């Protein structure tokens, strides 16, 4: 069953030739076999999922209507609130927090009749590039269990890669969907900022966070985006459909984009630490497009090199404020014997947050402090505007940009945990996309000599996900990289 694509599985269920219950049981069978090695899930909803599958099968048998994701087992990153089970953000500070409400995307998945099988591991509060900042467990890369799955949506990417679900939701603030997708050899899409409601997504960097799909192939990503995209009045930053209508992302997916012009910037290949094998695979991918008759055009993004610096001020500033609410007063972890009420805050937070989260809270607090605001936060906002302009200017000439998703393939567990700056550089290709607010996708474009996946990142203008997915799909149809699977 794991050799069937998302599209095939969906068709089989609708045809009733495959029961959702069988599929769900099959998936849990794989989980029973592999999860102890992979560690992708923080929680599993076996009974709930099976009950949902039974219900879908019954409705199909009765000829009653079902949603577009009927019967498909999917997973959710554990920073999206669910009114069932716990929502942990892979942090100790939330304790066994159980949300009284569903995130918008969770409701959308439920309404679409997807079968939610569990919630996946991540870097604590989505802060990290390797998934090693989870306070709860380790997730490994299914391609090499000594390596990281990438982060922060590492659990979702690993679960999809290992065939423990057919698709998953991740969230992406600086590359947290695309980087793990690249490391795990799957497709990961970060939609335009404002395309998907953030209501119920536990905030990290509010002006950058965006929820998106991770799947085996582009079709799966398109099918999930179809369900989660759209305006939600509870999220003021989700864009009104009169401004940017939601398209049917599946409908014309197989139509190649005509007269496609791909922008390539020299800056993409000047990055220090770019693995030659990654560069080679990406250049081959560009060649594949050229062979299809697509034009490659030289563009320049001169301000992209400042993206990481700007990001670590903006994201951390927002994070320092977003995470202020975890204080031991109202919910979550509270220190056992506080000296006074100030100590409730300081000790609860000291005990509850991991090192990377503390580092970012301190960085952000510093950046927003009186006397430093102009030099750091305000300056970073200006850089952000320049980066945005870089993209706008490039998109006047080309339909999309292509570059590596990450400068290297999945690194070893523990390799970068002592060197945060080195870790931050993993996101050098993805961060600018969040700062500009545009959509980006990572698709598999080859394997390294060590048999590790390499990702190609494609970036298009705001709200052009339909085109972005079609461009990605063009590559998929010409190649078989997306069919490669880890051995586990």
């Amino acid at each position: 069953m794991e050799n069937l694509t998302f599209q095939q599985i969906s068709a089989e269920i609708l045809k009733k030739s495959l029961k959702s219950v069988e599929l769900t049981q099959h998936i849990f069978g794989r989980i029973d076999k592999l999860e102890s090695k992979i560690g992708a899930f923080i929680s599993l909803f076996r009974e709930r999922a099976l009950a949902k599958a039974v219900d879908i099968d019954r409705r199909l048998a009765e000829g009653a209507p079902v949603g577009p994701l009927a019967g498909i087992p999917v997973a959710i990153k554990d920073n999206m609130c669910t009114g069932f089970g716990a929502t942990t953000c892979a942090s100790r500070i939330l304790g066994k927090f159980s949300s009284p409400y569903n995130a918008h995307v969770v409701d959308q998945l439920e309404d679409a009749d997807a079968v939610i099988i569990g919630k996946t591991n991540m870097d604590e509060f989505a802060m990290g590039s390797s998934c090693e900042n989870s306070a709860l467990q380790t997730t490994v890369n299914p391609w090499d269990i000594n390596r990281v799955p990438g982060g922060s949506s590492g659990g979702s990417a690993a679960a999809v890669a290992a065939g423990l679900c057919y698709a998953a939701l991740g969230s992406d603030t600086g590359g947290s969907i695309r980087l793990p997708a690249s490391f795990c050899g799957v497709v990961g899409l970060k939609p335009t900022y404002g395309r998907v409601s953030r209501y119920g997504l536990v905030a990290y960097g509010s002006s950058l966070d965006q929820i998106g799909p991770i799947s085996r192939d582009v079709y799966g990503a398109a099918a999930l985006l179809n369900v989660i995209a759209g305006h939600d009045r509870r999220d003021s930053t989700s864009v009104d459909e009169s401004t940017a209508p939601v398209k049917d992302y599946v409908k014309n997916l197989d139509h190649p984009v005509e007269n496609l012009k791909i922008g390539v910037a020299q800056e993409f290949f000047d990055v220090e630490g770019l693995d030659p094998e990654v560069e080679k695979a990406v250049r081959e991918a560009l060649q594949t497009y050229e062979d299809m008759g697509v034009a490659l055009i030289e563009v320049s993004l001169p301000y992209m090199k400042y993206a990481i610096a700007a990001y670590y001020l903006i994201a951390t500033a927002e994070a320092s404020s977003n995470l202020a609410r975890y204080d031991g007063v109202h919910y979550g972890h509270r220190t056992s014997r506080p000296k006074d009420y100030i100590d409730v805050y300081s000790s609860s937070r000291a005990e509850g947050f991991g090192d990377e989260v503390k580092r970012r809270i301190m960085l952000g607090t510093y950046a927003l402090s009186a006397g430093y605001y102009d030099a750091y936060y305000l300056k970073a906002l200006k850089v952000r505007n320049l980066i945005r302009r870089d993209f706008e200017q490039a998109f006047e000439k080309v339909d999309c940009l292509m570059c590596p998703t990450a400068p290297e393939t999945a690194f070893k567990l523990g390799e970068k945990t002592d060197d945060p700056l080195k870790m931050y550089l993993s996101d050098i290709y993805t961060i600018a996309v969040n700062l500009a607010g545009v959509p980006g996708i990572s698709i598999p474009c080859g394997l390294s000599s060590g048999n590790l996946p390499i990702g190609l990142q494609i970036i298009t203008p705001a709200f052009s996900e339909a085109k972005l997915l079609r461009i990605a799909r063009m590559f998929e149809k010409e190649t078989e990289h997306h069919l490669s699977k880890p051995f586990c």
Partner: protein
Amino acid sequence: MDVKLIAGLEIHVQLATKSKLFCGCKVGFEDPPNSNVCPVCLGLPGVLPLMNKKAYEYAVRTALALNCQMARFTKWDRKSYYYPDLPKNYQISQYDLPLSHDGYMEIPLEDGTTKKVRIIRAHLEEDAGKNLHEGLDHSRIDLNRTGTPLLEIVTEPDLNSPVECRILAQELQKLVQFLGVSEANMQKGHMRFEPNINLQIIDDDGREYRTPICEVKNLNSFRALERAVAYEEWRQLEEWKHDHDFTLEKMGKQNRGWNDARNETIFQREKEEAHDYRYFPEPDLVPVELDDDWLEKIKAALCELPLAMKQRFIQDYELNDYDAGVLTADRATAEFFDGAVKAGGSAKRAANLVTQFGLKTAHERNCRVNELGVTVEQVAQLAQLVEEGAVSSSAAITIFEKMLTDESDPKAIAEKHNLIQQSDAGALEAIVDEVIAANLQAAEEVKSGGKKAKKARGFLMGQVMQKTKGQANPKIAGELLDGKLKE
């Protein structure tokens, strides 16, 4: 030595919206603790604020009435501080781009003049919850109030006495009630004041000193406001007298609290120790753009302001300051009275009817004058009957009372109850003659103009009234009587 008090006010006004500023929860603190809450105002993980458009309109309406410049583009900012009643540990407020700025408010002073007090800014923000300190070992938190819309109004330090501070606060209360944007109920804490006070002292040698600026936090009554400012005025002068180094340059600013029972302010902290609030733009809300259409719509909801109305009543209707003040104390009364005058009633008579009977009755019935069931037309007609002398002032009150349950026009009511005044001079003359004939001694006393004249005349008038069952027009009867007793 010359001492001048310099004070500015920071005022928080709770807006009378049905729901909170950033979620759909009901505004209601009387309900059981933590019953008007939802994930958004509880600050649970993953929630996002959604702006209450009505609150924004109320804020703009008030700012317009305060003659403020309206910002066409404003944004929200987060103000960070840790406190148990603030679940997100930041408050959504407005920092560098408030929705309005640079206005002024005209306040009436006790000497009959008015004073312009400049307004620095007015902006919207959310209120915090409430900590209930119950015992030594624990406190409880009620988050019903969390997220209630507050309008913060900041004045320039243009106030120069405790009374001026109080008057500004009271005028503002009247203003927001007039505008219908706040109940401004002091008992319910709908208005809170924080005066900034210092003194400018010029000593006998012409040297100028400025005492440290003190901000007295969280005053919730006009009385406390006036007294706290007065206390500071006294205290700061005493401190300066004691030590001339008690100056702003040397001591900086400080926050003080108000102890109502002891009638004094208490030191809280130096401003230098003040929080660094780490303001930054709220990324979860989009900036607000006030376009022409929206602004026009809000302007259309504006009404005549209380002070302007009071001045119009004095000028155009020739009311005295006191009556004009009473009639413009709330919008319903003012508009009811104004309506009666516009419907043709004598302003003076209508004013008497409304102040002497209408307001008293409304107060007894715990309603507004316009809710008594009497129309402005009825009051106008009644006022005219008094003006023409057809009914006496006291009969008018009786008629007003009947009108509460009788929809007939006042003239019909007067006739039905024999309350029409005897104004026929011929008929009255006969009665006056009769009374004089029966009370010759009193008549003589009046004629003689001695000590007892006044009392005797009163007695004779009383007799006339008795004979006419109170229906004699006192003016005509009095003239007749005086004419006869002059001979």
